[in-house]
């Protein structure tokens, strides 16, 4: 059951190698991987929209979509047909070429990062030796596409959304990258495959999240990841109540759908990378196949993201920046130090004690320093 996808790919390649020259078999192998990702990405996106709507509905004591197909399972297809047949409106003053390019440009990095995710044992499309770096670098280019779309729309709300998006993504990139560092220290590699394999052991449960520094890094990375996806409570680039729809105000039809496709694929890939870095990727109890473990963990994290959306209101811009620069950044820096100490101190009890003490102290200090300055409670003598 475990290597079912790997074996089916091998069988296909054997079939082709019977009548094709060797060099084309390599190409076919590449195309099979690409094809799998190109199907998985949009398919994931379609069903994440369904999942999110169902989940938010349940949180709000509603049923959610249930008209199209059983449990509303065909809803994403109906939405897709609707999006495709809608009129595509381009504002008169817009920069037409960039306006068209931006939604296309944002989908590409979102699809590219799928290639370094290890979906299961031997199921990584490309085993890059700088996989994590590739992921972070490529996903950071979404900022550019968002700003392209915002600028090309020639709309004040769009531009505001784009500016906010740039500020937010650049800020959260810093704690996000810094929280990966301890994991890389521990694994001694940047390759996503090696990272997962270094978390094997303890019957498949030797995940980084079970160490003090791993847990801290997991939280900081995940929060930054939610911010990177522009999702609630960090969705100020598209805050409906403030700036209409932010950077995609002037988009309609399939271009609008592409923005959402990129967002939902980012949700999936960021959750996937979090699972790979901290939750052991496809490692798990031997009962289930490795890819099932990966998807269980990823979807659990996706669930938490949507749970956030169902719970938390949008942060203010200054609160958002404050969280990144005044809380997450110092915490991740201390965390790197703690991880360094962890590998320096030989005795287990001592290193756990030091790590917990240092992180707890930092957390307490940061909470104390970041406490909102509440004005003294005023009493109105004559108003009583």
């Amino acid at each position, binding site marked *: 059951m475990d290597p079912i996808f790997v074996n089916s790919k091998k069988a296909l390649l054997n079939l082709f190698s019977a009548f094709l020259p060797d060099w084309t078999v390599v190409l076919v192998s590449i195309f099979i991987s690409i094809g799998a990702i190109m199907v998985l990405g949009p398919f994931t996106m379609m069903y994440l929209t369904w999942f999110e709507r169902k*989940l938010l509905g*349940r*949180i*709000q*004591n*509603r*049923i959610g979509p249930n008209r199209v197909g059983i449990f509303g399972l065909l809803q994403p297809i109906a939405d897709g047909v609707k999006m495709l047949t809608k009129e595509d409106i381009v504002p008169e003053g817009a920069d037409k070429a960039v306006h068209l390019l931006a939604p296309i440009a944002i989908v590409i990095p979102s699809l590219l990062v799928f290639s370094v995710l290890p979906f299961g044992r031997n199921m990584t499309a490309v085993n890059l030796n700088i996989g994590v770096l590739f992921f972070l670098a490529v996903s950071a280019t979404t900022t550019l596409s968002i700003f392209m779309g915002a600028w090309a729309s020639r709309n004040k709300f769009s531009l505001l959304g784009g500016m906010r998006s740039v500020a937010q993504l650049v800020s959260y990139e810093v704690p996000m990258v810094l929280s990966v560092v301890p994991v890389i220290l521990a694994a001694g590699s940047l390759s996503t495959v090696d990272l997962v394999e270094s978390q094997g052991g303890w019957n498949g449960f030797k995940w980084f999240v079970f160490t003090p520094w791993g847990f801290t890094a997991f939280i900081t990375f995940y929060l930054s990841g939610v911010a990177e996806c522009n999702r609630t409570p960090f969705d100020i680039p598209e805050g409906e109540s403030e700036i209409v729809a932010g950077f995609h105000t002037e988009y309609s039809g399939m271009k609008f759908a592409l923005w959402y496709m990129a967002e939902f694929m980012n949700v999936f890939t960021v959750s996937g990378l979090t699972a790979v870095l901290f939750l052991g990727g496809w490692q798990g109890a031997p009962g289930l196949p490795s890819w099932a473990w990966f998807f269980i963990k990823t979807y659990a994290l996706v669930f938490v993201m949507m*749970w*956030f959306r*169902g*719970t*938390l209101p949008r942060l203010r811009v200054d609160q958002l920046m404050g969280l990144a620069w005044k809380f997450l950044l110092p915490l991740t820096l201390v965390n790197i130090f703690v991880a360094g100490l962890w590998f320096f101190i030989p005795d287990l009890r001592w290193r756990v004690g030091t790590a917990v003490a240092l992180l707890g102290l930092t957390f307490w200090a940061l*909470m104390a320093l970041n406490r909102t300055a509440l004005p003294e409670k005023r009493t109105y003598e004559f108003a009583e």
Partner: protein
Amino acid sequence: MLGVLRGMGITLKNFLASYVLPRRPDSLETGGIVTVQYPEERLPEKENFRNFPFLVFDGTVDNIRCVSCDICAKECPPKCIYIVRDTDSEGKPLKRPKVFDIDFTVCMNCGICEEACPFDAIFMDHEFEIGGPERQKSLVYHRDDLLKSTAHFQKIRPTDFAAIEERRKKDAEKKAAAQATVQAAAQPKPQTPPSPQP
């Protein structure tokens, strides 16, 4: 920080409760799904619900109570009622409408027609699912579309029906009695002995 966790707890509780608790439209306090999937499921109609007037007939369609007095048409604030009195073959006016049109695109469901009617001929219905393919013709309801039996009225508003029937019966008795005295005064009654003069 703690507040965030508590909020997450509340949303999770609602999420889980929506699967466990029975679906009730009044479960806002307890949790559980409150959606009523309208075309398939309906809330029970409230008796005091009033929407769109209809004309009442007793027993058969010919026995329409309306005498086409035109009071409702005059009282109607948006003027959505149009009545033409019926005539017999000699051109003599009859006590029933030939045309009774209500334009439901104009009707604002105020219920003044019901209050104004001295003959208990027009009442507010429980109808709310009207619709048409265009804006003008299909929502103008004619006399035959508006006619509904007293049984229907009794079904939708039993309390009002009982009160009105009571009053009508009393009125009828009083009228009969009055008629009897009028008749008694009009013609001398040979059977009865003249009352003794003091």
